[in-house]
């Protein structure tokens, strides 16, 4: 969005450039926000990838099924654990399922939309990023939509199913605020994960084989959030609250909904900070992205 200012701010070029050349070109879209432009680009490219995967229908069906089965097995681990114990860190199976479902659904949403960001390093290495840089569309949108795969719906579906199960077994004293907090939590959570994906992508401009570092934060992060904060050491909980604020994805708002005590004796209102934290994370990730892209364009591959 900051890019827009830079581009439109130099609008003086529009007039002078239209002398001889533009007669052949066509009217350039003015004042369209970079965000809208990015979303449009994303939609166009994602659609192309969906159609590409549909060229191999059987393979698509198999990977979708495999993806779903793989993530489903993940929850089975937790079920097995509860066949031995009644409580985990003071949480019942339903309450853990609630945390698990929220974290998994938020992460699934991000994985679906930005799951290919870790391929950026490869694109930088083999130089195919250049073909994206000569298009009149935001690079971030093009990279994010790269290899868009509907098979990633598997994880989101599994998360939502576990969440649905949790809602039927856990006793929650619902209030309008709590109902409203549910979708806000999912979207903010996805945005917080998303900013980690984008920042990780930005880092790959500098270190092209850093995709595993990014994965440890994203996949590692979601696994962490699937368990109650009470089972982890205080230092770790502090880290994911104040340094990499993953605690705002589900822990804090979910504990408010469940009516359970917060970790680290945080005040009750911190449960509502998730959207603000998400916006702050996205802004930081955006800055990191711009810095990464700038370093690519000044050093090359």
């Amino acid at each position, binding site marked *: 969005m900051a890019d827009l200012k*830079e*581009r439109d701010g*130099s609008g003086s*070029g529009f007039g*002078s*450039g239209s*002398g*001889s*050349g533009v007669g*052949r*070109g*066509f009217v*350039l*879209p003015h004042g369209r926000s970079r965000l809208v432009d990015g979303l449009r*680009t994303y939609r*166009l*490219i994602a659609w*192309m990838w969906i*159609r*590409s*995967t549909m*060229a*191999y229908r059987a393979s698509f069906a198999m990977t979708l099924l495999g993806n779903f089965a793989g993530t489903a097995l993940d929850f089975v681990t937790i079920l097995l654990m509860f066949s031995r114990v009644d409580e985990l860190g003071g949480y019942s199976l339903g309450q853990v399922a609630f945390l698990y479902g929220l974290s998994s659904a938020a992460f699934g949403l991000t994985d679906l939309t930005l799951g290919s960001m870790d391929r950026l390093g490869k694109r930088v290495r083999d*130089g*195919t990023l*250049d*073909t994206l*840089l*000569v*298009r*009149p*569309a*935001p690079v971030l949108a093009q990279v994010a939509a790269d290899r868009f795969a509907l098979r990633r719906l598997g994880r989101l579906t599994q998360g939502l199913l576990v969440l649905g199960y949790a809602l039927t077994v856990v006793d929650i004293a619902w209030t309008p605020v709590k109902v409203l907090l549910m979708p806000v939590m999912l979207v903010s959570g996805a945005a917080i994960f998303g900013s980690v994906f984008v920042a990780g992508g930005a880092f790959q401009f500098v270190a092209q084989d850093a995709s595993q570092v990014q994965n440890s934060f994203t996949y590692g992060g979601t696994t962490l959030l699937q368990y109650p904060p009470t089972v982890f050491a205080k230092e770790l909980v502090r880290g994911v609250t104040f340094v990499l604020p993953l605690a705002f994805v589900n822990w804090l708002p979910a504990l408010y909904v469940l009516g359970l005590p917060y970790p680290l004796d945080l005040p009750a209102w911190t449960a509502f900070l998730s959207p603000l934290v998400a916006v702050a994370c996205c802004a930081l990730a955006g800055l990191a992205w711009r810095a990464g892209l*700038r370093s690519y*364009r*000044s*050093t*090359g591959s």
Partner: protein
Amino acid sequence: MDTHTDTGSSAGAAADEDALIRLDGVEKVFDVRKKTGFLRSERREVRAVDSISFTVARGEMVGYIGPNGAGKSTTIKMLTGILTPSGGHLRVAGIDPSRERTRLARRIGVVFGQRTTLWWDLPLIDSYKLMHRMYRIPDARYAENLDRCVELLELGALLDVPVRQLSLGQRMRGDIAAALLHDPEVLYLDEPTIGLDVVSKVRVREFLRDLNAERGTTVLLTTHDLSDIEQLCRRVMVIDHGRLMYDGPLTGLHEIGESERTLVVDLERELPPIRLESARVVKVEGPRQWLAFPAAQSAAPLVARIAAEYPLVDLSVREPDIEAVISRMYAEKATS
């Protein structure tokens, strides 16, 4: 500051109007880190492009040649806005490429010879539809341009074929069409004929010549194949070690480089070396003889004389290769 340096050059306003591409002392310095041990590295500056200046007028067709690693693609990357120059002044169609990359993208077309921008698993036409929407090309203009490209590049039968099933030559033609649907004013081609068979080469060259002649599209192409340049470009620029070594007509390059073409002659039987004043025999192998003659000179009179005086069976002409021309040119500069 930008506008001042523009008008400050002695070329004057009229010439500036025509100069679609203008480079003024453009350089690109890379910081190369070399590992010298565990966690230790040495930093070294590499000047990939060292103070290059040239202009390309609207409607020109220019060959940009040089050995690998000479700075060709770095220059192209700066001209397309992919890379930011470390120094100097650069304008394409009045736009500073690195600062307004997206705006410039609508006015240029780029074909990377080795990397297709087409969608591998989808029919060719789908890639064009994406261009249509991504570049926001008006429907009528898109239809017109697509029809023209399909006709001239003979893509009609290929539109519904998935790109992965196309041959290299077909794909290259497809890529060129994709780069032209939005009516770019400049077309950059990076090795457009690499790996193509003779028929495809001819078709691509013919198309580019027409494009330049009829639409006035400015074309800048890098190539290893001197015959590309010979058949397409009146002007050629040679870059080596990041410096512009030569800028002028191809014939001049041959003169400076004292390059020679080779005539390979198959005679009816083994004969002593052919004696002619305009060529010298460099090799004899049974009935086959290799004759070198200046590249700037026509082969026709030479062939006529050999045919008249010797029992000729077959012959072919070999072009000088670019590396040889450049290295000879380089040696010349060093001694003078």
